[in-house]
């Protein structure tokens, strides 16, 4: 490895970092970080030659030297948080600024007995055995190089534990703010969410940044959903225009559990989003939704993989994209139905609306079916606005701009309306409206629908 090798800076930094890292005194964690680092060192950054990275070049990340983001809470005001908050949101909130929890901006209300919503580092002190049992056991860092980096370098993140049979009715909002510095910085946020048997929880992850500084967010979230548990997860990504965001969400589902995940990618310059789910037992149900709105020179790559490892599980996947300007998007979906996963019911749909000539989408839906008694379908579409629809609306008196804006909103609405945390749905709707040329007229036409 030469000095010019992009891995070198990480290798050098790691030997310093591991001594001061959270849990540095825990042998298992030290070994874990080391093996993740070794894995990254051996493997390096992915290249376009790899099937999984064929459409997304991470060269801009590889050639930038990022410093681990220093604490910057002092520069963040309540108003900054307000700006990206959801109006009328009632729930628990942990706010991380440049990767570190800001207790003043955070607020966790009264919780049912046994429920934990805290920093991962704290959980490491309080219940190291539980963390050890799950941390990095699900999000495979041998196959995912950025997960390897995260596993080596994570400093903080959220730990959520809802014990057996307990329901947390209010949503839990995990906010990750980046305040870029003069030089490029990176945050490897790490979240561990454990929803035990029969428990119920809603978690919203928000990522946002501001300013035009360069930064890199590299989060990994692992979720373990127990038997018959119900878990709703949302990820709202509103990074700033220049940001790099490479995220991994890994969900493990127990018997007859019910999971929904809604991935909303609105911001970022270069974005890669991996969602991997695994049915570890029978009777699970999964709804995997996504919306990406891509303009300017943004590049947003969504990779999803659903492993039907056991029989009698159901997954419905719907990802929709709106592309404008020179925006570029990738949808790569893979549903793997394992040999004995009989009676699997899986449906995967990706739809893309192109608003400009220069926007580009690669849509690669996929099914790998090794069982023989299954019901699986997938479909994908990429198209410009339907001029029939535009004419229909104009023929009813809406001007052309309003007609086009309304149709764009209508395209997104299918996913927006699946968001069940209403303040989040409203914020999402408002964000989309604000990007439309005829936002006021459209807002009038859909207001009650929000």
């Amino acid at each position, binding site marked *: 490895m030469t000095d010019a090798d992009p891995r070198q800076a990480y290798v050098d930094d790691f030997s310093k970092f591991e001594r001061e890292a959270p849990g540095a005194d825990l042998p298992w964690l030290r070994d874990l970080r080391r093996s993740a680092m070794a894995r990254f060192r051996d493997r390096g950054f992915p290249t376009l030659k790899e099937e999984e990275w064929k459409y997304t070049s991470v060269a801009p990340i590889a050639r930038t030297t990022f410093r681990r983001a220093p604490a910057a809470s002092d520069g963040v005001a309540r108003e900054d948080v307000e700006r990206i908050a959801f109006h009328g949101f009632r729930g628990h909130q942990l706010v991380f600024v440049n990767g570190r929890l800001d207790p003043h901006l955070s607020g966790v209300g009264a919780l049912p007995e046994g429920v934990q919503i805290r920093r991962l580092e704290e959980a490491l002190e309080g219940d190291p055995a539980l963390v050890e049992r799950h941390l990095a056991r699900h999000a495979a860092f041998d196959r995912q190089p950025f997960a390897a980096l995260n596993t080596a370098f994570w400093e903080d993140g959220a730990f959520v534990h809802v014990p057996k049979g307990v329901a947390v009715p209010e949503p839990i909002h995990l906010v990750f703010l980046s305040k870029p510095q003069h030089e490029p910085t990176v945050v490897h946020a790490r979240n561990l969410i454990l929803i035990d048997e029969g428990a119920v929880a809603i978690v919203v992850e928000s990522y946002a940044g501001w300013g035009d500084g360069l930064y890199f967010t590299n989060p990994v979230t692992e979720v373990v959903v127990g038997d018959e548990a119900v878990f709703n997860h949302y990820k709202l990504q509103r990074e700033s225009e220049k940001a790099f965001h490479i995220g991994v969400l890994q969900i493990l589902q127990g018997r007859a559990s019910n999971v929904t995940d809604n991935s909303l990618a609105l911001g970022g310059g270069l974005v890669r989003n991996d969602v991997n789910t695994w049915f570890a037992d029978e009777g699970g149900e999964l709804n995997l939704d996504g919306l990406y709105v891509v303009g300017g020179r943004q590049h947003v790559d969504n990779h999803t993989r659903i492993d039907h490892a056991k029989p009698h599980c159901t997954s419905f996947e719907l990802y929709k994209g709106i592309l404008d300007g020179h925006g570029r998007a990738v949808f790569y979906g893979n549903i793997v139905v394992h040999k004995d996963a009989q009676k699997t019911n899986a449906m995967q749909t990706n739809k893309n609306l192109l608003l400009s000539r220069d926007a580009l989408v690669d849509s690669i839906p996929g099914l790998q079916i090794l069982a023989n008694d299954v019901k699986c379908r997938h479909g994908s579409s990429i198209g410009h606005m339907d001029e029939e629809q535009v004419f229909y609306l104009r023929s*009813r008196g809406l*001007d052309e701009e309003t007609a086009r804006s309304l149709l764009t909103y209508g395209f997104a609405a299918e996913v927006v309306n699946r968001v069940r945390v209403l303040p989040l749905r409203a914020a999402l709707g408002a964000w989309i409206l604000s990007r439309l040329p005829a936002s006021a007229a459209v807002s009038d036409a859909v207001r009650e629908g929000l």
Partner: protein
Amino acid sequence: MAAPMLEIRDVHASVGDKPILKGVDLVANAGEVHAIMGPNGSGKSTLANVLAGRPNFTVTQGQVHYMGRNLLAMKPEDRAREGVFMAFQYPVEIPGVNNAYFLKSALNAMRRYRGEEELDAIEFLSLIEEKLKLLGLDESFTKRGLNEGFSGGEKKRNEIFQLLVLQPKLAILDETDSGLDIDALKIVANGVNMMRSPERTTLLVTHYQRILNYIQPDVVHVLVDGRIVKSGGNELAHELEKHGYAQFEAAAKVA
């Protein structure tokens, strides 16, 4: 004397570069109902769409005046705001756009254009309540996406629902009767008849005489191969029902 509601003079129109209308003449006055009949592919929908202003339907020759104004120079939305309404032969499904809120914003766009006060949600709801009832439509109808997953008959009724709410001066109904069962047909005909007034004009495009049992036209036109080959009273419709279009098609070929 006031200008006719609609005056079509020698209109030739192409879709893409295919000529479809080959010299249509038609004058309709306020208060009249005109039926336009003709075989498949004769250009009935093309004529309706030309009047509504569909892009890519190019008028290559001739003129259309609407209340004395050059209709062809107006954008589709301005035609709508000025009171032209076409019920589509194949209404378009628009998922994600709510049926009722869409109609409210369409109505308010027109009211703004005419300098009238906009309706708020409550006023709008009370306005649509009786019209829904009249058309035998459930309230859940307003909560669905625009034509989304509607049956053929529901789509046609939704067009008439819009007609009743928007109250146009010139209504062009493109085969709103086809695909309706007899009860729905009566309901739709009733809706159209309610709109009949000395200030309004209806062009009723249809294949079948049966709707003319419920809506008495003042004039019946026969459109064959892009031209109106014959106009007459209601008896012309009965004649067509009995003998079909063969005689006119033969004549069109000769001409």
